[in-house]
């Protein structure tokens, strides 16, 4: 292994840490991105359900769903700025 040298390449050149210096930050942002996509699906499902069955409480839940999307999107933006 120590003799593995082709065109001046060595195993040290293939360090993941070198490629992704902030791997843990990227993972956190990706997780928040997934949560944001999920929140969009939740909000869309609530809107569809509210259209199916029109009630007063349904409109409150719809507002809660939209607020949840807003909160997760804000967190995503905040994480991109802070991290």
């Amino acid at each position, binding site marked *: 292994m120590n003799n593995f040298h082709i065109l001046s390449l060595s195993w040290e050149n293939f360090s993941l840490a070198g490629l992704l210096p902030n791997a843990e930050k990227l993972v956190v942002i990706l997780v928040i991105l997934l949560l944001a996509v999920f929140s969009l699906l939740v909000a869309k499902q609530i809107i569809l359900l509210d259209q*199916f069955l*029109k009630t007063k409480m349904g409109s409150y*839940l719809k507002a809660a769903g939209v607020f949840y999307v807003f909160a997760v999107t804000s967190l995503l933006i905040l*994480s991109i700025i802070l991290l």
Partner: protein
Amino acid sequence: MADQSPKPLPIQFIAQNPNEQVYYLFRRSFVTNLPWMVLMFMLLIISFVFLPYSEQFSFWTSLSEEMQFILLLLWILAVCGYGLMNLVRWYFEVFLVTDKRVLDIDMVGFLYRNVAEAQLKSIQDVSHTQGGVFQLLFNFGNVYIQTAGTVQNIEVKEVSNPGLVHDIVTDLASQIDE
């Protein structure tokens, strides 16, 4: 004993016919929400109990303050999302009884929805089951509605007072037949 002259509820649904009136709306017993509510409460409490002792965990102290803040917000939002999802699922999983038909809206997971309906005149048999400590203690159970032909049978799960639901559907179906 079911009310013989049901009053229409101020509820509208998308497939409602012009002169159709909703007489009853049933949903899963509120007690069935307790497991997820307790879990959600515990998950939220964990985050606040963890904070004062967080310095004892090296993985947490190795993170920057910004990262700690973001992770805490992420945890709280994920738990709130779990709660919202379960609340919406409970609220919209309903069993509607109108003057013409019965409708059952079921959700499998959160993104899959199943709507089954049967005309009152096609209802052949209604039965209900109630068993187990919690179902007996809090008076909820399952109601099964068998319909004629190839129409899908309807299963109303964990509804409050299944005996009353059974009686209401049977009475309305028999009134239609007369």
